[in-house]
């Protein structure tokens, strides 16, 4: 908070509204109310109250608040110490690839080896260059709002902001000065909450782009709650998946060409429900349940009466409650052992709506092309010291040599995971 975000992201909150009566010198807490508001109706979400993520709070989870983030990136020496404590399977190692990449979010490789990284609410896209061991991040594009998603295609850098998709031609020609951004699509709704996006190239020149719902739980504006497929060349677009709450990561399965995506579930049900999801889109217009049904089998307390869970497509995999899986990629490299081929790496950003933190790690998931037989492995983790947050993976990206980069938007760094027998 998300950030923001995220945040990010976000207004922070405590769980208690104290009504203080009597004179100034004697503060007596009279009542500890749980927050409630009427979030039905689209007008509410055009101007959401500052604590919109609360919805209807419950007693058990009172006091939980989104992560405030980290104002400055973690210095390299401290990152090295943290990475020394990160567990990986045998043969794998993790190191700092670039330190000082503030709020590093989705990553994309330029044709000439520049690594571009979005940010959450700094409005900036960074360009990371330099020899190995001396990577430096510099602001490349500035003045945007929440440019969390980036992609590189046909010699151009694409950046997706809340309501616009920009194209920057031949960006690596001069990294000191970004070219003028051309808006290639802007038919997005204006909502900021859950409006920060991710770019999933479909392999045919189009992008799958998520449009999150601007609420915790609501009947969302019809312009939100789905995945679109957008042609950056013509601005044509279509809706491909419905019932999506807040997705900030997805990838096309190389085995089938189908879109898979992570989806963050609603808050304020309980510490353990609902799970965040991994979904597979097998046909256009498929509906994944929000707001009626969560995780395939949990009828929503408010909207669940209107429809049955059996009407919707359940997730392929339940990631864990509030774990916030974001960026995900299918692994297609040759560096890692063969059992990793065509499996999925997921950056699990980590929970806030839960008493005991969950996530803050990279998960590996092997699963059949039809979504059957999911097998999970905690691949790299955790970025927690007891309940203190050391880092939050936000995206993963394969490097040309088959190693895996991990963007950490809390510590402001990019890590590299490599394998040697």
């Amino acid at each position, binding site marked *: *908070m998300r*950030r*923001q*975000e*995220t*945040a*990010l*992201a*976000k*207004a*922070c*909150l*405590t769980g*208690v*509204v*104290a*009504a*203080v*009566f*009597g*004179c*100034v*010198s004697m*503060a007596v*807490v009279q009542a500890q109310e749980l*927050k409630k508001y009427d979030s039905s109706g689209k007008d509410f979400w055009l*101007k*959401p*109250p*500052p*604590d919109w993520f609360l919805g209807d709070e419950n007693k058990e989870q009172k006091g939980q*608040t989104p992560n*405030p*983030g*980290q*104002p*400055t*990136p973690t*210095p390299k020496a401290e990152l090295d110490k943290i990475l020394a404590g990160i567990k990986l399977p045998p043969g794998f190692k993790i190191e700092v690839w670039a330190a000082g990449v503030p709020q590093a979010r989705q990553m994309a490789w330029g044709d000439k080896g520049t690594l571009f990284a979005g940010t959450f*609410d*700094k*409005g900036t896209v960074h360009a990371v260059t330099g020899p190995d061991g001396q990577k430096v991040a510099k602001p490349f594009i500035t003045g945007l709002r929440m440019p969390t998603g980036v992609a590189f295609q046909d010699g151009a850098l694409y950046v997706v902001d809340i309501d616009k998709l920009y194209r920057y031609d031949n960006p690596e020609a001069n990294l000191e000065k970004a070219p003028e951004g051309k808006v290639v699509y802007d038919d997005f709704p204006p909502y*900021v*909450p859950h409006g920060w996006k991710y770019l999933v190239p479909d392999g045919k020149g189009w992008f799958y782009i998520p449009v999150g719902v601007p609420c915790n739980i609501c009947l969302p504006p019809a312009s939100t709650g789905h995945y679109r497929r957008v042609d950056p060349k013509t601005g044509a677009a279509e809706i491909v998946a419905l019932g999506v709450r807040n997705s900030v990561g997805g990838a096309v399965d190389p085995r089938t060409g189908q879109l898979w995506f992570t989806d963050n579930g609603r808050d304020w049900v309980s510490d353990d429900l609902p799970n965040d999801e991994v979904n597979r889109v097998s046909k256009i217009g498929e509906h994944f349940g929000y707001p009626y049904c969560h995780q395939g089998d949990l009828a929503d307390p408010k909207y669940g009466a209107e429809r049955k869970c059996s009407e919707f497509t359940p997730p392929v995999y339940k990631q864990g409650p509030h774990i916030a899986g974001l960026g995900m990629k299918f692994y297609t490299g040759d560096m890692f052992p063969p059992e990793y081929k065509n499996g999925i790496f997921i950056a699990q950003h980590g929970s806030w709506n839960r008493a005991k933190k969950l996530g803050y790690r990279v998960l590996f998931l092997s699963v059949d092309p039809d979504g059957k037989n999911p097998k999970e492995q905690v691949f790299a983790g955790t970025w927690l010291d007891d309940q203190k947050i050391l880092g939050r993976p936000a995206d993963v990206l394969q490097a040309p040599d088959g190693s895996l980069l991990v963007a950490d938007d809390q510590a402001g760094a990019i890590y590299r995971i490599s394998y040697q027998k």
Partner: protein
Amino acid sequence: MLTSRSVVCIAALLAASAPAHGQPKPPAQPTVKAPAIAQTCIACHGIRGISTTKDSPSLAGQPDIFTQYQLVFMRDGQRQPGVMAAIVKTLTDENIRDLGAYYAALPAPPPFAKADPVDADKANAVMALRRCANCHKDDFSGQGETGRLAGQRPDYLIKSLRDFRSGVRRGRGMGAMMEVSVTLQDEDIALIAHYLAAKP
């Protein structure tokens, strides 16, 4: 780095602020090491972060991350730095972290002596509607990225709320502070400011 010279300097300043003979001594304050960079701040933000300068906020007892974010915002240009412009330009990330930690460790300001007396019920009504305590906490001591309001200079609170109301200052993320202040009348702002300034 605390040089012997700066130690002497701080000791002298502390001695100068000791109470007059015959009055009860203030409770012994924990020794908090000031980073060298904090010397620059004293002129406006006061000894040990308690400001005696109009429109300059007290920094003592502000949550670590809050102070860091304000310095980062001013350095990045997300917040107009005003008189802080030249200062923030030279701040490194390490300076910012040191300053955040330092001010957070300092004892919070006492209730502001010259706050106007206000109707507490009215002030609380204005704040309850906007859920101020949700972020700033019930005792308005702040947390995380949200500032401490209790004991803050009322002139600075007034300035801040007006800046949020007009959009000159955005605050973090989705602009929660702008949202809550946009319907505040001048009387509400003065009411809240003096109420919070006098809070222990």
